[in-house]
Structure formats: C-alpha cells, structure tokens
C-alpha cells in the first residue's frame, strides 16, 4: 500500500521463490494413484499370495539355481564373452589378413545362430562328436594329452561355454567400436614413448575404449542374466527359472512362483546396474564434467546411490 520501504539498505541476498512446476505435480498425482491401485491389488487380491512368493524366493533349489545357473552362468559367460570379444576385435583391427578373416568368420558364425539352438547343438554335439578331447598335431600321430570330455562337460559348463562363445561375437563388435573411438594420436603418442603395440593397447587404448565399451556391455550383461533362463535347453536344471517353474508345476501356484523369479531377476539386474555405474565412473576419469553429469543424472533417476558430487 505504501511506497518503497523507507530504508537505506542496498539490495541484499536474493531470496526468490523458485519456478513452479504444475505439470510435475500432476504427473506425480497420476502416478501416485496408479501406484496405490497396484499396491491395493497386491494387498487385497489374495491370489498374489505374497507369503508363498517369499517362500519360493528362499526355497533352496531356487536359491542354488540362482547362484549356479543365473549368477555363475552370467559371470562365466560374460567373462568368456568379454575376453574373447576383445581378442576378436583386436584381431579384426590388425593388418594380418589371416587373423582378420578368422575374426570375421567367427562373428559371422556365432551371430547367425539363435542362442537357444546353439545351446542344444553344443550340448548334443560336444558329447556326440568328441567324447575325448585330444591335443596333438592334426593328421599326425602326435598327441600331447587327452582328456575325457565327460569329466568336465557338465551341462552347466557346456551352457556357459555356449553362451560365452555367442556373446563374444557381439562383444567383438562393441569392443571394436570402442577401440576405434580412441583417437589414433593416442597410439602414436604411446609408440613414440617406446611402447610396444601390446602395451599401448593395454595401457592406453583399451582403458579409453572402456568408456565406450562399458555401457553397451552393461546391457549385454543384463541380457545375459535373462538368457541364462535358456540354459534349460542344454538341459541345465540347476537354474533359477527352471526351479521356479518346477515349484509352480508341483504346487499349481503358478503366478506366485513366477513372481518369485521376476523379483529375483529384478534384484540381480539392480545390483548389476550399480556395478555398471561404478565402472562408468571409473573409466570416465579425466573425461571432464560431461561424464560425471551423465552419471549423476542416471544415479539420481535410478535412485541407486545417495549423495552427489563426482
């Protein structure tokens, strides 16, 4: 009502109201209603049978299936996939036409076969075609040693091998893109310092390529978690989804058994996602604010980590 305040103060600290975001509040309201409906269904609809879900989740065969088939399967297949994939990528990028061709052929072959089919073919094929594994010179009566394939060719081993070999074909392309993303001045600087090709690859190129390699590899790992459910084709029975289904068939409580598996998959994926953002931060060192901003945003959205900073 009166004129300007009767004071000699100069403008001080700004204490302004923030911009309002009504759209956000509407979205929150809608989502809250949907969430409430879902939760209410969970609670009121007895068919969800949460106590049984919980029982299935901690049922011993499901847990061992989770550890062996799902987790060990994923880790084993991804280790084979990443190591072999990087090797294939390096082979493909050399000047050696033989290595190049071999890598191309490998990728062509394994990318062309569905994993489900590959699992069956390898499980049948390995024991059928090669019941003993002999290391020697081809076409010559020279043998270094012989292994009985049955001793190590358990279903899980073959399954992991098959998934890993298949994964390597995809990882090779990812690793190749990563290696090519590194400026060639980096290799030249390494060479000029007297590094060998291998040392330059290991110390200079691959660590930088990892920035490009890690995010798609995270996706590959998540896919692999889910693809371990294909191990049943080998057959591997020591696998989480197979065991959950077994429970559902034995008890006729189909939905709660499946939900138990779904929850386990979500838990494993979440943990892997955390591992991925840690790796991305690790390999993003030195690449400026951009990377850390991206990471922070993802971290906040997924709510995986408290706090900020880089």
């Amino acid at each position: 009502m009166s004129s300007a305040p009767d004071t000699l103060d100069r403008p001080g600290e700004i204490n302004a109201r923030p911009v309002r975001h009504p759209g956000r509040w509407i979205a929150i309201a809608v989502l809250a209603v949907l969430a409430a409906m879902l939760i209410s269904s969970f609670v009121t609809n007895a068919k969800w049978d949460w106590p049984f879900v919980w029982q299935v989740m901690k049922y011993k065969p499901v847990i061992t299936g989770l550890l062996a088939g799902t987790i060990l399967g994923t880790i084993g297949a991804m280790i084979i996939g990443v190591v072999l994939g990087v090797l294939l990528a390096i082979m493909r990028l050399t000047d050696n036409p033989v290595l190049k061709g071999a890598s191309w052929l490998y990728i062509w072959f394994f990318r062309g076969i569905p994993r489900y089919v590959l699992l069956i073919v390898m499980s049948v094929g390995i024991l059928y075609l090669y019941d003993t594994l002999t290391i020697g010179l081809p076409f010559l009566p020279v043998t270094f040693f012989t292994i009985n394939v049955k001793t190590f060719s358990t279903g899980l081993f073959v399954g992991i091998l098959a998934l890993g070999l298949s994964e390597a074909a995809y990882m090779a392309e990812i690793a190749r893109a990563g290696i090519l993303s590194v400026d060639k001045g980096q290799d030249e600087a390494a060479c000029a310092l007297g590094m060998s090709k291998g040392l330059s690859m290991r110390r200079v190129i691959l660590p930088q390529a990892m920035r490009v390699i890690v995010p798609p590899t995270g996706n590959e790992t998540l896919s692999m978690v889910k693809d371990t459910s294909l191990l049943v084709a080998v057959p591997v029975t020591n696998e989480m989804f197979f065991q959950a289904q077994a429970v559902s068939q034995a008890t006729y409580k189909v939905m709660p058994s499946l939900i138990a598996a779904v929850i386990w998959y979500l838990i494993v994926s979440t943990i892997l996602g955390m591992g991925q953002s840690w790796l991305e931060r690790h390999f993003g060192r030195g690449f400026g604010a951009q990377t850390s901003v991206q990471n922070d945003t993802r971290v906040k959205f997924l709510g995986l980590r408290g706090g900020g900073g880089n």
Partner: protein
Amino acid sequence: MSTQSESARPLVEAINVTKAFHGNEVLKGIDLHVNPGEVVCLLGPSGSGKTTFLRCINQLETINGGRIFVDGELMGYRDQGGQLYRLKDKEIAAQRREIGMVFQRFNLFPHRTALQNVMEAPVHVKRQKAATVRADALALLDRVGLADRANHYPSQLSGGQQQRVAIARALAMQPKLMLFDEPTSALDPELVGEVLLTMRELAEGGMTMIVVTHEIAFARDVADRVVFMDGGVVVEQGPSREIIARPQHERTKSFLRRILTEQDETPEAHPDAPDAGIPAHLRKHS
C-alpha cells in the same frame, strides 16, 4: 666406416630419404645432419612434408628409400652385408625410446593425470621403480612450471599447460633427441609464449632438437640452424639468423614474407636489428 671422431658424429643423419603415400611422393630425397646439442628448425609451407619427415625419424612412418641414422644406429633395419632386414616391433619400440616427440595436438593420455602421464613410460616401458620415477616426474613437472598441476587431468589444463606436460612426458624417457611438430599451432595466441619458453630452456640445457614451427622469432633466436623445405625437398638451409635475414631462394623469401606479415605482432621485420620482431619473453639479452 666413418673416419670422423666420436664427438663429431651427427646425432641424426638422414640420407636421401624418400617417402610416398599411395604413389604420391611426399619426401623426395631429404638429406639432413643434426649434431649433438644442435637445435634445428624445419620451416616450410603447409604440405611440404615437414610432419612426414619428423614422423619418419621416429618411424611413425616407414620410409621408402634412403637411410636414417640416430646416434649411429640405422632406424628400422638391420644391415647385414648390404642386405637390410626389417627390425621386429619390439626392436623398433626400443629405438623410439631414445627419441622424444611432441605433437601439435599434445596427445596426452586423457585418462591419466599430468603426473601419471609423465610416469607412464618410465614405469611401464623402462620398468623403473614407481617411487623413484615419481620423484623424477615431479621434478620434470616443476621444470616446466607445472608442479602444482601434477594431479590434474589433461581436460582440467589449458592447452599451453597440456603441451608442457607433453614435453615433460617425453623428457621422462631421457631421450637423446626431441622432435617437435608445430607444438604451438593448436594453442591460443596468449599461451604460445609459455610453451616456447619451455622449449627455449630445453635448448639452452643442451638438448638436441628438431622443431617444425611457424614461429619465425623462435627459429631465429633459439635455433642454431633452419632448414627450409618445400615440395618434399630441402630448398635451403643454414644458420638461422642468416637464412631468416637473407634468404637466397625465391621460395624461401616469399614464404618468410608471408609468414612475417601473418605474425604481425612483429612490428617491422628489420633483418639487421637482431631482436626486432621477437617477443619480449624470447629475447636472449634484453
């Protein structure tokens, strides 16, 4: 073979070096001798083959003809009774250890801090102990004026600082020879001086240097000799002041005229006044 005494042997001896890319001959028989402790500037218009020649010396490019000796050692080949045998990658890597190179675009390792960049080669190539290398690396960073930036990543440094780290990184291998390929061309003008100063101090410390540059003032004041290249051949060479003040060949003259008008912080290119046109930070005696 040589009847010269050990001390008179050139550190770098390039004889009739030729290099072609896909049939396009870029170096057409380069001869160059650089004595120990000498600073040689390579001048010449863009595309004349300066970068290619520098890269041939440390075998980032393989030459098609001629020979390059560094400290008496034939680069890239073993000579057995006149027959050359290509060296293995490991042997070539060993030869490169004696030669430091500084690139136009720095090429620092972005995933490592300044200190780690400097330590990388001594630790992983020479396999020296990290603790001693660390002390040496810090001393080198101090020498290029960056002791307080040791733990910064390259992305956190200015271009001039990055280039000085790159110089320290090359020096960490204790090379006999330093090659610089337009080390200041990618820098903002106000950052050029600090890099040239570092190079000048290195030159005064007795390092043998081959520098490709367009900084005429630097060439004239710091280099013992300039070599003017054009079209893949050495057109003219001699003591730096003499060549820059009184170039003999028309191509050298027109190149210098052009470059000196571009670098117009030089008020007047008075060939006879020794310090004219040389930025204050580069003047030897002021």
